[in-house]
């Protein structure tokens, strides 16, 4: 996973329309969230966060126990659990099932987990039509782009971009009114829902004591995806587990408020097993695919393990001053923003993603709004020291390390520090503005070292 080239970041920074789109969308989400968690509206907000963090910690530290409990409850309600180590195993399972059932059409609701494993591409290679049904994801699928934001995937597109995508892919006359664009998508996708053989959803939570999955949405496409077709496959990372159905009171009170400022999403679905005797509609077959794909790696470090608590609300993205400048496509993986910055190096290697933990001013706005209290800046700092260690092991980054060693030596030898500083104040102006100093200087008027340090002024003051 290479670093996003500087030129791409510069381009994003210079695109004023895109900057405005990112800025205003995230501002709106921030404002709505703030209103929804204000003390007048939700006095228990901080308690809920503390409790959510404790529940996630407990579950993650007993993940094997709760997985097994979840599995036996899914089976008890007529469903099946499929454990998958990798994205390939997920695709193999879906393809195998589709073949057995002679299924050709799949409807999918929004799931970052399936983006992570590029499921659609794998399915399409085998002539299966897998249609994204969330409006934003549908548009992106037609445009062959990846999501810009966890919650608002098409944040970067205008109605004119959408019009072009529809005209090119649906062969219709150009339509630029969003209400009409939505009607077009609704009509097209409705046909798909009613004809599909398989519905694939994600899951926000896996409930161990019930063998149930929970997913939230505002459009209704996830409900349709699991209610219309005869087969429902839910795909979720193993970290989505929570112990009890009653714990949903804590998580659901936090999730939608943190994401969009709604008290609850329009649709919250609690689904378990196949349709029961007497139920008129609903799937005849229910599968929960539990994906590892590297999550077990993140368990190993007790300090960074908390990265798995994430409930994918997107609040950290909205509040991050860096995300708000560079947007979702400048992150190397499908997960962007602060959460992306901490999990990407853990999944894909610290050496390959060395720049990412440093692309932060450590302002802490993310940690302040995280509903499950992940200490993102703390994890970033830990990752930074792992990056420098990895560079040492690789034999790179020698100059920087030497620089900090020299700096640390100076800072532990006050006499030398003061001498060096006084020389610096006389000669710093002559330093060529090359390399990193040059780039730093490009953005600002460089401050000068004071002619007399405080040390010196203090001495003078004492003598008076």
């Amino acid at each position, binding site marked *: 996973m290479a670093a996003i080239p*500087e030129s791409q*970041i*510069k381009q994003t*920074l210079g695109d004023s329309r895109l900057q405005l789109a990112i800025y205003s969308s995230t501002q709106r989400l921030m404002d709505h969230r703030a209103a929804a968690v204000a003390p007048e509206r939700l006095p228990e907000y901080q308690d809920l966060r503390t409790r959510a963090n404790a529940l996630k910690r407990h579950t993650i530290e007993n993940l094997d126990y709760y997985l097994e409990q979840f599995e036996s409850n899914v089976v008890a309600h007529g469903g099946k659990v499929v454990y998958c180590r990798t994205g390939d195993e997920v695709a193999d399972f879906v393809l195998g099932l589709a073949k057995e059932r002679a299924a050709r059409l799949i409807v999918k609701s929004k799931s970052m987990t399936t983006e992570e494993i590029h499921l659609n591409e794998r399915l399409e290679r085998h002539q299966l039509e897998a249609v994204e049904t969330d409006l934003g994801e549908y548009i992106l699928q037609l445009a062959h782009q990846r999501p810009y934001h966890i919650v608002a995937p098409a944040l970067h597109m205008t109605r004119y971009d959408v019009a072009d995508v529809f005209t090119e892919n649906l062969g219709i006359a150009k339509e630029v009114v969003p209400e009409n664009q939505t009607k077009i998508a609704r009509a097209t996708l409705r046909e798909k829902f009613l004809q599909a053989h398989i519905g694939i959803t994600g899951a926000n939570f896996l409930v161990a004591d019930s063998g149930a999955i929970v997913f939230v949405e505002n459009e209704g496409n996830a409900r349709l995806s699991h209610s219309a077709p005869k087969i429902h496959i839910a795909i979720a990372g193993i970290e989505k587990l929570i112990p009890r159905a009653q714990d949903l009171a804590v998580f659901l009170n936090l999730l939608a408020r943190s994401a969009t400022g709604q008290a609850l999403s329009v649709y919250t679905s609690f689904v378990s097993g196949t349709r029961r005797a007497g139920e008129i509609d609903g799937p005849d077959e229910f599968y929960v695919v539990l994906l590892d794909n590297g999550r077990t790696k993140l368990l190993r470090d007790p300090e960074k393990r908390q990265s798995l608590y994430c409930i994918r609300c997107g609040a950290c993205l909205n509040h991050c*001053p*860096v995300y708000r*400048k*560079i947007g979702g496509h400048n992150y190397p993986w499908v997960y962007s923003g602060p959460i992306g910055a901490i999990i990407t190096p853990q999944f894909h290697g610290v050496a390959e993603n060395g*720049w990412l*933990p*440093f*692309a*932060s*001013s*450590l*302002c*802490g*706005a993310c*940690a*302040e709004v995280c509903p499950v209290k992940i200490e993102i800046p*703390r994890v970033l*700092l830990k*990752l*930074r*020291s792992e*990056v*420098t260690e990895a560079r040492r092991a690789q034999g790179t980054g020698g100059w*920087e*390390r030497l620089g*900090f*060693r020299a*700096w*640390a*030596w100076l*800072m*532990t030898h*006050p006499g030398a*520090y003061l001498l060096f*500083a006084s020389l610096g*104040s006389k000669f710093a102006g002559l330093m060529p503005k090359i390399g990193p*100093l040059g*780039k*730093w200087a*490009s*953005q*600002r*008027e*460089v*401050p*000068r*070292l*004071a002619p*007399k*340090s*405080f*040390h*010196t*002024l*203090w001495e003078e*003051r004492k003598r008076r």
Partner: protein
Amino acid sequence: MARVSLFVTCIVDQIFPQVGIAMTDVLERLGFEIDFPPGQTCCGQPAFNSGYPEEARWVAGHFLDVFRDSEYIVVPSGSCTSMIAHHYEEIFEGDAKRLEEAQRMAPRVWEFSRFLLEVARVEDVGARFDGVVTYHDSCHALRELRIKDGPRRLLANVRGLELREMDMAEQCCGFGGTFSVKFPDISGAMARTKIESIRKTEAATVVSIDSSCLMQLQGAMQRAGLPIRTLHLAEVLASR
């Protein structure tokens, strides 16, 4: 008369010594005896934030030695105070002796405005500063030390001063230490957004309790041709 040790921080020592002078003036006027351990250099944050915890440990250890006997350590910086009071525990994990020293040190370290309000117990230092001022909440101070109202209360008691809030007071200025060196374009863009918010207040001065933020904002405003001054809270409070 209580004795107070100054930790001016490396940036104030070398770039903004007038902030140290201002802090000294204010504290002396309040009747404190000031001491300045001359062996002081830095808290170690630059190394820690750059992923060099070992080098940070050396420097932090030096800090603990220099200030070993100080009862009150007053610091004109939220980020340095937070480094010492909150992060030294992380740095010295595994070194029982230093860890214990750091834990004993933590409650003795005071960010300047908090020292005035909670130890000196004053909200009015008798300052005078004519003009419109806006206040920038530096990130570590705001989120790690929970400093928000304190400086504003102190500014409210400055004669002649009108405090006008900017709409993005809590947004990061984009400095982030090594962040501004490694990602200068993003850092610069963040600064420009912030100074636009400052400009809209029509204040003549922007005030903060962190000199690193002020340096970032000053650089960006000068580059943008904005004639807005940056002052540390101590400089405003020392003003007569």
